[in-house]
């Protein structure tokens, strides 16, 4: 059985404990920060994609509204 301390021992090693926990949570934090940066890039890409899709939709709508050259020529002939 692991022996337990009867009184609180001298705290000369507290720095090591703090360092171990801080280092680990710093690693996790750095990882999450990198993932957040990537997510920002994905969001930007999604915004661009939406904007281009909307612009293309508008172009197509205009294209449908305006008669083509061949249609105009047909009308002239008629």
């Amino acid at each position: 059985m692991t022996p337990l301390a009867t009184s609180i021992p001298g705290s000369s090693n507290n720095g090591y404990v703090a360092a171990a926990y801080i280092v680990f949570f710093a690693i996790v934090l750095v990882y999450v920060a990198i993932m957040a940066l990537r997510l920002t890039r994905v969001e930007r890409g999604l915004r661009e994609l939406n904007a281009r899709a909307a612009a293309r939709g508008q172009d197509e709508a205009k294209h449908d509204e305006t008669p083509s050259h061949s249609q105009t020529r047909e009308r002239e002939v008629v």
Partner: protein
Amino acid sequence: MSSRTFPPERRSENPEISSQGSPKRELRGFRTGTEYGRGLRPLSIATLVAVPIALVLVFFYAPIEAEEGFLQKIFYLHVPLAIVTLCGFVIGGLLAIVHLRTRDRKWDLRSYVAIHMGLIFGVGTLITGSIWARGSWGHWWVWSEPTLVSFLIVILLYATYQPLRFAIEDPERQARYASVFAIVAGAFVPMNFLAVRLSTAYLHPRVLGSSSNLPPKMAFTFLVSLVAISLLFATLCSYELTAKRTRMLLKARSRTLGFR
């Protein structure tokens, strides 16, 4: 096995193949495969609850050990990290077996993420162990200690996984070779663990065994810490998978719309 034998919908989940597979296939894979982000929220909440509870138990509930004093608190971080790291590598190998059996790329992606995350946790294990060794033994590293050196060998072995994987351009071959590596290295992990345990001369304490009976309060704190670190591992894996799938979906959508 020829790449022509792979069903099209199974080519969908690998971020590396998205530049080569057809967009329709990729989108079909997203619909029929897994919903990205599913389970991430409950996992995140569970982790956010479990980690503070574990920290409170470590610093306010678990008794102080007689020999090492307060320094022993590193045990509740270092050992769960090491266990989860090795389990992550073994899980990566098992997922790679499923990939080779089913030819489904989603298993390769999961295997990759498990190993990737295991490597990050492994670095954490090495650093926290080193700090503990410095406080306890007076040295940052002891080369004559089989537990330390064997763990370093495992980490170095897995450090070659990503360079190997991304050195292969063909996505089919990349997934196959990575899976074979993951299986062989995953089998090496328990063998290595057993070999170290069978060695007689060691300084590093044994955690799992009859000689290391923890008092109930310490054992409970250790179990809660293990659960918290496992949940953190699962959450980060899920986060990584979600991010990868979202990027793939975006690429696929933009190609379907003819923008790239």
